[in-house]
């Protein structure tokens, strides 16, 4: 980087073509940035360079200079500076983009290097692709297609190693498949700062293991499975569940905390199978937590609410909305929601509040984070509430004011969106007396005493946006359909709004909601839903800088202000 923060571009030459790439960029990445693939196993953008797989060997050269004078040596035929090619192939991953670097990625020598490495890698590989979870997304398979021989010259007995070593509660190792690239070892040491993995034995008998007395039990352990280029490290949860080529990846956002980790949700025929991180160098690099990956299990939870109900009796949406409107208009009404709502839902809820005024409170879910990808705020979208104007103040943990208002009869109706009020300090006896309209995905002590139940969808079943702790607006998409008969939250809010306003539901599209938002909210004025980049759009959150947000520092996040002394964490 130069002083002004701009990355300097330098000319490099790949296979005879000139390109401009950022100076100092790793050559593997540099090639990828201009569309030239350099196959590699051990190199990973977010890890240190180990250079052990030797797959990225290329021919490399630099412009020649006279040793004595330092003058460039010119080639008379071409009129360009002569290139001094290295006698041996060099690994691209250990080299950085510098002015004038020449590499050959398609030469005979380069190809023969790749073929040689492929043959060696497959020599002791069990070739059990038919039962391997990695099959379909395996680098070994991919490059074997490109550089493999198609038959084996290896007639010796293969090395035998254990096939199901339990490394930790969530990771199982197939030692035979391991190509000893050491990505997982480096991840644990460098990113997780929990160096439990290492190699024992020597040569081809080397094998991955945990240090004595330790296990791979960190909350980031499943990242080793993601970065494993072969099927050696497998997720115990996903192991032998589904062939990956049947799975459809959908871009999503992890709702574990306000970090807004970018994810990919893998589904087939309406069923979720796994969640993996999606690279975003501004938010989560290539990583996510193990706990965040398990959130998909809530979709098929027993406690999932599937029917509209009035006083416990199943009913239609129309009747439920009618009854909800009656209760709201009976008033006085108070609204309770949280940062679990998407920006669009918060915008719709704000419209409802404008029509049927009442106090809006967000219930805070704070719990000490890990200073990495789990923040103290365990909801993904508190800032959405602020930006949409739904709330002016930060969430509270205890609804003392609402409890007093209920006790005194000041508030008669409560519209609760996904929150368990009994955990926020309102006893269920008190709730039973009030008119409770509940919107949410799962049953809890509050929904059990609600007069009207309006089941909603989980983050995996709808599309929308969240605003994370950096004020980064990020989109998530519907991966699977919701339970039969249910509809996106914004439609339910729209129906409620229409009922209250006395019109017909218009079922707004997300684009329409965003047009509305752009008109109402200054910092969203330029935002169009379809134009939000996949890596998110950083909003100007300076207007809210004075608020005592509870997040501490984490990966790619530093709090704007000193943590308030009153803050719990």
């Amino acid at each position, binding site marked *: 980087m130069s002083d002004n923060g701009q990355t300097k571009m330098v000319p490099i030459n790949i296979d005879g073509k000139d390109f401009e790439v950022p100076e100092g960029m790793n050559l593997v990445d540099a090639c990828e940035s201009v569309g030239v693939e350099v196959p590699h196993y051990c190199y990973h953008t977010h890890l240190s*360079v*180990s*250079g*052990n*797989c*030797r*797959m990225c*060997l290329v021919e490399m050269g630099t412009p020649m200079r006279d040793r004595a004078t330092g003058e460039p040596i010119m080639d008379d035929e071409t009129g360009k500076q002569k290139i001094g090619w290295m*006698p*041996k*192939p060099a*690994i691209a991953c*250990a*080299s950085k983009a510098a002015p004038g670097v020449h590499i050959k990625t398609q030469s005979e020598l380069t190809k*023969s*290097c790749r073929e*040689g*490495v492929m*043959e*060696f*890698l497959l*020599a*002791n590989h069990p070739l059990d692709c038919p039962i391997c979870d990695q099959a379909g997304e395996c680098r070994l398979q991919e490059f074997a297609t490109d550089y493999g021989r198609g038959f084996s*010259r*290896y007639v*010796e*007995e293969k*090395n035998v190693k254990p096939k199901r070593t339990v490394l930790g509660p969530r990771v199982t190792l197939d030692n035979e498949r391991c*190509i*000893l690239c050491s990505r997982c070892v480096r991840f644990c040491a460098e990113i997780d700062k929990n160096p439990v993995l*290492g*190699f024992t*034995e*020597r*040569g*081809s*008998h*080397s094998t991955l293991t945990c240090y004595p007395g330790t296990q791979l039990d960190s909350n980031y352990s499943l990242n080793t499975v993601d970065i494993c280029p072969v099927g050696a490290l497998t997720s115990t949860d996903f192991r032998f569940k589904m062939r990956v080529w049947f799975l459809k990846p959908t871009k999503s956002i992890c709702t574990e905390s306000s970090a807004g980790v970018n994810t990919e949700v893998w589904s087939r025929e309406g069923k979720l199978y796994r969640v993996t991180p999606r690279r975003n160098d501004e938010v989560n690099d290539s990583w996510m937590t193990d706990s965040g990956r398990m959130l998909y299990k809530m979709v098929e939870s027993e406690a999932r609410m599937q029917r509209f109900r009035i006083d416990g009796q199943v009913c239609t949406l129309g009747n439920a909305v009618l009854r909800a409107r009656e209760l709201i208009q009976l008033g006085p009404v108070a609204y309770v929601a949280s940062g679990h709502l998407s920006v669009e839902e918060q915008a719709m809820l704000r419209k409802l509040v404008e029509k049927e005024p009442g106090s809006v409170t967000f219930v805070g879910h704070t719990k000490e984070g890990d200073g990495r990808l789990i923040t103290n705020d365990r909801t993904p979208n508190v800032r959405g509430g602020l930006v949409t104007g739904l709330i002016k103040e930060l969430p509270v943990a205890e609804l003392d004011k609402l409890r007093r208002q209920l006790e005194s009869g000041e508030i008669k109706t409560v519209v609760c969106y996904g929150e368990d009020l009994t955990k926020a300090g309102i006893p269920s006896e008190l709730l039973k007396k009030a008119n409770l309209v509940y919107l949410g995905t799962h049953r809890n002590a509050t929904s059990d005493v609600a007069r009207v139940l309006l089941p909603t969808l989980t983050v995996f079943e709808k599309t929308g946006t969240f605003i994370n702790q950096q004020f980064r607006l990020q989109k998530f998409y519907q991966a699977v359909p919701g339970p039969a008969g249910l509809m996106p939250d914004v439609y339910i809010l729209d129906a409620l709004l229409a009922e209250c306003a006395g019109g017909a539901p218009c079922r707004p599209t997300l684009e329409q909601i965003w047009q509305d938002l752009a008109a109402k909210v200054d910092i969203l004025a330029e935002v169009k839903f379809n134009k939000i980049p996949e890596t998110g759009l950083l909003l100007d959150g300076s207007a809210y800088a004075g608020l005592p947000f509870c997040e501490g520092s984490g990966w790619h996040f530093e709090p704007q202000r000193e943590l308030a002394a009153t803050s719990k964490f």
Partner: protein
Amino acid sequence: MAIQERRIIYKHVDEPGYTADIDCYMRHGGYEVLKQALQAKPEDLCKEVFDSGLTGRGGAGFPTGMKWKFLDRKSGKPIYLVCNADESEPGTFKDRQIIYQDPHQLIEGMAISAYAIQAKQAFIYIRGEFINGARILENAIEEARAKGFIGEDIGGSGYSCDIVVHRGAGAYICGEETGLIESLEGKRGYPRIKPPYFPAVLGLYQCPTIVNNVETLAQVKHIIQMGGTEFAKIGVKGDTGTHIFGVSGHVQKPGYYEVEAGSATFGELLYDLCGGPLPGRKFKALIPGGSSTKILRFGERFTGKHPNTGEPFDWGVEDIPLDAISLRACGTFLGTGGAIVMDDSTDMMEAIANLMAFYGHESCGQCTPCREGSLWLNKMTTRMCSGRARTEDVDLMKNIADQIEGRTICAHGEAVAWPTQSHYNKFKDEYLDKIARQGDGRGRYNPNGYPLI
């Protein structure tokens, strides 16, 4: 010209009455050179070493003065000196005599070298199997420290440097410069990638480090004693000083012989000093400098122009002069000088299987070509020797070696590939003959009468 030993390093080795203690060493003029060196400026000492043209004696033969010049002195980080006493190349046993019989020569050489490069701390990384060697060195260091030749304020010069002896744990790869550094740091002995981890810039604890062989550091003492230009007069252009040849195998008198570089030929070494072949046998093959150097076959002719003189030469193995330049002109290397001689009783397939068993066992397993290739060659040659060889195995062997050479992190790849390639080039006929005999049902071909492995 009769071959003459010229003992500089080995002057007192095997001398009756000469002991490893400091008193004996000092009676023979020990530590005088150090005292003299401490009067000089460090950069002058470095210049002497550079002028001497001394090449590293650990096998690669890199000019020592040049290596010292590469030291990153601007970083402000401490500089370390590491003595590589992990002598583990098969066929090599030259450093052992220095350590066991004349340890103070090494310590004096190290003290001078450390002062010359202004090292903060010096280490001796000694192979785990040299248990007594480590004890002898530690004892010698104690003695030298008591006399003030190492430790605080050496000889009143104000320069301080201590030497620590570190024992390896028995891995061949820890003799590789960067593997040694990793091991010394307490990690697994995985060689580092170069670039960026050149020891002279990012060595031990990411500080500038010089790693030199035992004999090299001992030579430094003699360079300072006689002066760089004077030392350069010994030997030939590009390979100065003496070489210690550790001859083993099928000769009458195996042992170590210190000879001035280029002063004699292999024939003279093997016939005159080593007493020639065993009775009734003929020399068949020679590995000139440690098992990883390319093998030479008796009877083949080497022709070309000598790089030093520019004159054409036409040599048999016996005629090759004992210097690195001539050996390189013949397509092999002087390496460590550990010459392994094989006579006509040797089954070359068994010989390569023996070597591959070693290299397959010693590959550290870090990078793919060496890890998989060396074990493949090991399994394959073992199978071939057990009577299940196929004709295509011979070409396959060469092909695998070609796929390893030049594509690995460290030189262990070459150490696997070179013997295999040279065996293939020179003994392919014998392999094919043996395989044909096995196929004919004429039984196992083994001129030696018993298997080597």
